[in-house]
C-alpha cells in the first residue's frame, strides 16, 4: 500500500517527539539515537516514493491518500498526503539534509544540558516540515505552517537564559504572525472564490477558468503574504538575521535549508493560482528581486559569520521567489534544492569553525586552512556553489533563475547585481575567515568525525546537484539525462534549456565578484577602511541594515503606541466619559429628584395606590363607552 507510506514518513518524527519527551529526557544519548533513527526511517521511506512521485510529473497519478477530518456546511476538510515530483524533491531535501544535520548536532551540541530537549524539538520540526510538504489542502498546510513556526520559536530561543535568544524567538514568532494573518485571509478568499480548500480541486477549477477574478488576485497576494513572512522577504525579513541566536545546526536546518524555503514551496504548490493572476506574479517577482539585492548589500558589511550567511540566505530566498515570480516555478524550486545543500553546508561549516574558535566574528578567525582542512575545503566548495562559480550547484540554479528573469530587464539587473555582490561577500568571508594569518586566541583544531562527515556529504551534494538542472547525469546517483524541469514544473515537463548569453554573463560576473573580494581582502588591493571612511553614509546605512529594525521600533513605539493611546483616550473620554458616565449621571439626577416621593409612610403609599387604582377604574369606565 504505497499510498499509506507518506503517513509513515510523516509520523516517525512525531513518534520520536513522544518517546523523547515521555521516556528519554534524562538520557541524552538515547534521545539523540531515537531522533536520528526517526529521521533515517523517514528518509528511507521516502526512497520508494521517488519512482511513483516522479512518474506523476509525466502524467501519472500522484500518490495520494486522505481521511475525512471535519465538515462544516459545504466545506469538507480532510487530512491528506499528496506526493508528486515537487513533493519528492522537497521530501528528499528535508529528510536527507535533516538527517545529516541531526548527526552533526550530536557533535555540536555535545555536553549541552538541554541535549534531549534539543532533539525533541528537532523531531517536532521534522514532523511539522514534512506535514507542510505532504499536505494536500490549504487548511492542513496552515496547521503545519504554524507548527514549524512553533518549533522555530522553540529552537531560536533554545538557550533561553540568553535574553537575545529569547527575544529573537519572540521576534520571529511575532513577525510571522503578521504574515500568517494574511495567509489565513488568503485561504478564506480562496475558499470564497473557489468553494474548496483542496489544492487539486482549486487547481482543476482554475484550469477551467470559471472563478471570479478579483478575489483571486487578492487571494494570491494574501497567500504570498504568508510566504513573505516565512521565507523572510522584504519587508518581513527582520526576524531571520536575529534567528541566528539559535544553535548553528538549527540555523542550518530551519533558517537556511528547509523552513524558510517553505514559503517558496507554498508558492510552487499554489503556482497555478499565481499563474492565473499575472499581476500577482509580478508583485512576487519584484519583492523577490528587491529582497535579493537588498539583503546582499547588507551581507557585504556584516562581521558575524552567521549573520553574513543569514543575509545571504535572505538574498538567495529572494532569488527563489524572483524565479517563481518570473514565471518559472522550476527555477525557483531548483534553486531551493541546490541552496538547501550548499547553505546547510556553509552553516554547518560555520558551526564547525565557531566550535573551534569560540567566536562568531570573522576577524577573530583567519588561517584556518591548515588547522581545519576538512572544514575549510568543504566550506570552499559551499562558497563556490553560493557564489555561482561553475560547475558547482549554485551556478546552474542561479542561471535558471536569471534566465527566467531575463524577460524582465529590471529583474535581470537586480539578479545580476546580486550575483556580483554574492560572489564578493562570499570571497570576503572566505578570505578573512580561512586565509591569511591566524588571529584567534585559542588553538583551533578540526571538529570530530560526526561533524566532518556530514560536511563532506553535503559538499559532494553541493558540487553535483546543479548538474540535475542541466540534464547531466550524476555519477552513482542519477543516470537520467532529463533535467529538473521534467520533474518539477507547472503544466508540462520541459527539457533543460540553455541560455548561453545569460550563462556566460553570470559566470563572468561571479568570477569578477569573487576575484574582487579576494583582491581586496586577501591581497590588500584596496583598503576597506578607507572605503569605509569615504563612503561612511553608505557604510552606516548598511551596517544598520537600512534601519529596518529602527523603523519597526519607531512603528511600534510611535505609530502603534500613539494609535493605542488615541484609542485609550477615545475610550476613556468619549465612550466612558460621555456615554457610560452620562447615562449614570442622568439616572442619578432623576433618582435624586424623585426620591422624595418615597416617604416611607405606609398610609401615603396606600393612598397613592388606592388613588391610582381608582383613577384606572375611572379611565376604564369612561373609555368603555
Amino acid at each position, binding site marked *: 500500500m504505497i499510498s499509506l507510506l507518506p503517513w509513515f514518513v510523516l509520523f516517525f518524527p512525531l513518534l520520536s517527539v513522544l518517546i523523547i519527551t515521555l521516556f528519554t529526557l534524562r538520557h541524552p544519548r538515547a534521545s539523540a539515537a531515537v531522533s536520528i533513527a526517526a529521521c533515517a526511517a523517514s528518509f528511507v521511506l521516502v526512497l520508494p516514493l521517488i519512482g511513483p512521485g516522479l512518474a506523476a510529473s509525466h502524467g501519472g497519478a500522484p500518490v495520494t491518500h486522505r481521511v475525512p477530518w471535519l465538515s462544516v456546511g459545504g466545506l469538507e476538510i480532510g487530512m491528506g498526503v499528496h506526493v508528486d515530483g515537487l513533493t519528492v524533491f522537497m521530501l528528499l531535501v528535508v529528510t536527507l539534509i535533516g538527517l545529516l544535520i541531526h548527526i552533526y548536532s550530536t557533535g555540536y551540541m555535545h555536553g549541552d544540558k538541554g541535549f534531549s530537549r534539543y532533539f525533541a524539538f528537532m523531531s517536532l520540526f521534522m514532523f511539522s516540515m514534512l506535514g507542510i510538504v505532504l499536505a494536500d489542502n490549504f487548511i492542513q498546510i496552515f496547521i503545519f505552517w504554524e507548527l514549524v513556526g512553533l518549533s522555530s520559536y522553540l529552537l531560536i530561543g533554545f538557550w533561553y537564559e540568553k535574553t537575545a535568544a529569547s527575544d529573537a524567538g519572540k521576534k520571529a514568532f511575532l513577525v510571522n504572525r503578521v504574515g500568517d494573518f494574511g495567509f489565513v485571509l488568503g485561504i478564506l478568499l480562496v475558499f470564497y472564490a473557489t468553494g474548496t480548500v483542496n489544492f487539486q480541486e482549486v487547481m482543476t477549477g482554475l484550469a477551467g477558468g470559471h472563478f471570479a477574478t478579483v478575489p483571486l488576485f487578492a487571494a494570491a497576494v494574501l497567500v504570498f503574504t504568508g510566504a513573505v513572512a516565512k521565507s523572510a522577504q522584504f519587508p518581513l525579513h527582520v526576524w531571520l538575521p536575529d534567528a541566528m541566536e539559535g544553535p548553528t545546526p538549527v540555523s542550518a536546518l530551519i533558517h537556511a535549508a528547509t523552513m524558510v524555503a517553505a514559503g517558496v514551496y507554498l508558492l510552487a504548490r499554489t503556482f497555478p493560482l499565481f499563474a492565473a493572476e499575472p499581476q500577482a506574479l509580478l508583485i512576487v517577482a519584484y519583492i523577490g528581486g528587491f529582497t535579493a539585492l537588498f539583503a546582499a548589500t547588507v551581507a557585504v558589511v556584516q562581521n558575524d559569520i552567521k549573520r553574513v550567511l543569514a543575509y545571504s540566505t535572505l538574498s538567495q530566498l529572494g532569488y527563489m521567489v524572483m524565479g517563481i515570480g518570473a514565471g518559472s516555478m522550476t527555477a525557483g524550486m531548483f534553486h531551493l534544492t541546490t541552496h538547501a545543500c550548499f547553505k546547510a553546508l556553509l552553516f554547518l561549516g560555520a558551526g564547525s569553525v565557531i566550535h573551534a574558535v569560540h567566536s562568531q566574528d570573522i576577524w577573530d578567525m583567519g588561517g584556518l586552512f591548515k588547522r581545519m582542512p576538512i572544514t575549510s575545503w568543504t566550506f570552499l566548495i559551499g562558497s563556490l556553489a553560493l557564489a555561482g562559480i561553475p560547475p558547482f550547484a549554485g551556478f546552474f540554479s542561479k542561471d535558471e533563475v536569471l534566465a527566467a528573469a531575463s524577460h524582465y530587464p529590471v529583474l535581470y539587473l537586480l539578479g545580476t547585481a546580486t550575483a556580483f555582490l554574492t560572489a564578493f561577500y562570499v570571497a570576503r568571508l572566505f578570505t578573512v575567515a580561512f586565509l591569511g594569518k591566524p588571529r584567534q586566541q585559542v588553538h583551533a583544531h578540526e571538529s570530530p568525525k560526526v561533524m566532518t562527515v556530514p560536511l563532506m556529504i553535503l559538499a559532494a551534494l553541493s558540487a553535483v546537484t546543479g548538474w540535475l538542472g542541466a540534464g547531466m547525469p550524476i555519477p552513482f546517483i542519477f543516470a537520467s539525462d532529463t533535467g529538473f524541469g521534467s520533474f518539477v514544473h507547472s503544466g508540462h515537463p520541459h527539457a533543460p534549456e540553455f541560455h548561453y548569453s545569460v550563462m556566460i554573463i553570470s559566470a563572468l560576473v561571479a568570477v569578477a565578484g569573487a576575484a574582487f573580494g579576494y583582491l581586496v581582502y586577501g591581497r590588500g588591493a584596496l583598503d576597506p577602511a578607507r572605503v569605509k571612511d569615504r563612503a561612511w553614509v553608505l557604510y552606516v546605512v548598511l551596517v544598520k541594515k537600512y534601519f529596518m529594525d529602527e523603523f519597526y521600533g519607531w512603528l511600534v513605539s510611535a505609530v502603534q503606541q500613539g494609535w493605542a493611546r488615541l484609542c485609550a483616550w477615545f475610550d476613556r473620554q468619549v465612550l466612558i466619559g460621555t456615554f457610560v458616565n452620562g447615562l449614570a449621571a442622568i439616572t442619578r439626577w432623576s433618582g435624586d429628584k424623585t426620591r422624595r416621593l418615597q416617604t416611607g*409612610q405606609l*398610609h401615603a403609599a396606600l393612598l397613592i395606590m388606592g388613588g391610582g387604582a381608582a383613577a384606572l377604574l375611572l379611565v376604564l369606565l369612561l373609555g368603555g363607552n
Partner: protein
Amino acid sequence: MISIGSFLTVGILLFVIGLAGVLFWRNLLILLMSIEIMLNGINLLFVAYAAKWQHLDGQIFALFVMLVTAAEVAVALALAFAVFKRKGNIDVSQLNRLNG
C-alpha cells in the same frame, strides 16, 4: 328572593369600610382586620354574581381567596408580632425607614 342590587350594595359597603380602615387606622392589627373586611366584601360580590350567572368560576375564586387569606393572616400576624418585639408597639406610622 333578594335582588343582586342588595348584594352589590353590601359588598361595596364592606369594601369601602375596609378601605377606610386601612387608610385611617395606625394600628397594624386593625389594618389587617380591615383588609379582611375588604376581601370579604369582594368575596360576597364573587359569590353573588356566581349565583346570578349560574357560573361556578366565581365560587371557586371565592374559595381561593379564603385560602390565600388564611395563609396571609398567618404570615401577617407573625410579622406584626415581630414588629412588636422590635419596636414595642404596632404603630404603622413609625415604620418609615424606607423613605427616599
